[in-house]
């Protein structure tokens, strides 16, 4: 079962809208305040990457329900320049240096699942889920 809602990311204010959407869904699903803060931090990072490096894209929030387990999935989509070396951006130390894909390892650690697909010239799709415990 998936119910999706999306926010277009074009400017910095859209980051706030994406956070708000994520927080609302997280609250509804019953995530505690600490997890809400983690989810919105992850959303901020992903949306900020779109805004800064892809120029425009979408950030969507899915409500998941698998085998009775509820979860929230963030999907960040853009048609930006893509990431040529994914392994490199998943290395630590990159987040503090700024640049494309900043903070992705951090997002992975805040969430439970993390998946990234990127083709240079085509864009990037990141899916990351947090399950309700």
């Amino acid at each position, binding site marked *: 079962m998936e119910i999706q809602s999306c926010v277009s990311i074009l400017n910095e204010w859209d980051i706030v809208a994406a956070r708000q959407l994520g927080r609302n869904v997280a609250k509804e699903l019953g995530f505690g305040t600490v997890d809400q803060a983690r989810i919105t931090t992850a959303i901020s990072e992903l949306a900020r990457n779109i805004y800064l490096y892809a120029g425009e894209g979408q950030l969507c929030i899915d409500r998941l329900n698998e085998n009775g387990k509820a979860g929230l999935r963030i999907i960040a989509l853009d048609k930006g320049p893509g990431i040529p070396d994914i392994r490199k951006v998943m290395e630590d130390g990159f987040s503090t240096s700024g640049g494309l894909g900043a903070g992705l*390892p951090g997002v992975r*650690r805040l969430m439970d699942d993390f998946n990234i697909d990127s083709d240079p010239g085509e864009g990037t799709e990141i899916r990351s889920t947090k399950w309700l415990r």
Partner: protein
Amino acid sequence: MNKQETLEEQFSKILQEYINNQSEQALYAAQQFSRTALEKKVPPEEVISLQKSAMQELMPDLSPEVWHSFDILLEVMTAYGFAFREHQSLLATQKELKNEMEIASNVQETLLGTSVPEVDGLEIGALSVPAKQMNGDYYHFVHDGDHSVNIAIADVIGKGIPAALCMSMIKYAMDSLPEYRKDPSAVLESLNRVVEQNVDDSMFITMFYGMYELRSNILHFASAGHEPGFFYRYKDKEFLDLEARGLLLGVDKNAKYKRYEQAVEIGDMVILMSDGVTECRTDEGFIERETLISYINEYIELPPQEIVNKIFRDLERLQHFQLRDDFTIIILKRTK
């Protein structure tokens, strides 16, 4: 602290105790608590949450403004938590790297291993200590039957892994030149070509190569820009520079290395070293060669291995136990 208690319970107790008494004891308990929390890798945002729930329990009637203020704190601390997790992950990576380096340094030791030869009429002491894990200094002995003992001492400009990798190459280049072993100039000329062809332009190697002829007790030697050694003349109790001119290895593939000779009498000593010894930095700057001589002089009556050990110990202390460069010293003494 009771292990059965949850973190929430522990935190709540400490907070209550402090609110009631403002005691140092409660603050100490809080410090102990953070030790446990850090061990369990509890991120900062979790601690804010502990504080908030403990306060909700202890002071449920606080104004809503107070509770709202926690949201800001939580948000800020989540970002710190982001950095905290990265730090944890970097620590784990660092540990892995350290282990790998340890293995590499063991491999290097095996690769570059040489044993000090036992030769009738000569006593030899040698010591080489890397500044970091991998050694960019290198020494090697070859004992050729009754005829000669050959000594090589080399130093890659630079230290750490690149220097160590480079040294392994030198060692194998040297192993593959047995026919030249006798003649110091020929050895250096061959190695110079190997280095010139195979090593990055930014890397240079200095090397001293000596061949001690056991029958005539003459040391033949040549140097490729290596730190000059000392010759100790027992008869006059004086130290002379073992001067030899020659270009660093790897600069010019046609470089020539002049061969020098030094007759060695009973009691005389040949002292070779890397620039990690003379460039041993103290609070007053580099130590002078004169100072080094005075250190050697202090132990001059001891067997060579003890002299090198004691010099290292003294110079290590002088540098507050922080080596800035790889350190190698070799002493060869004619005893009869």
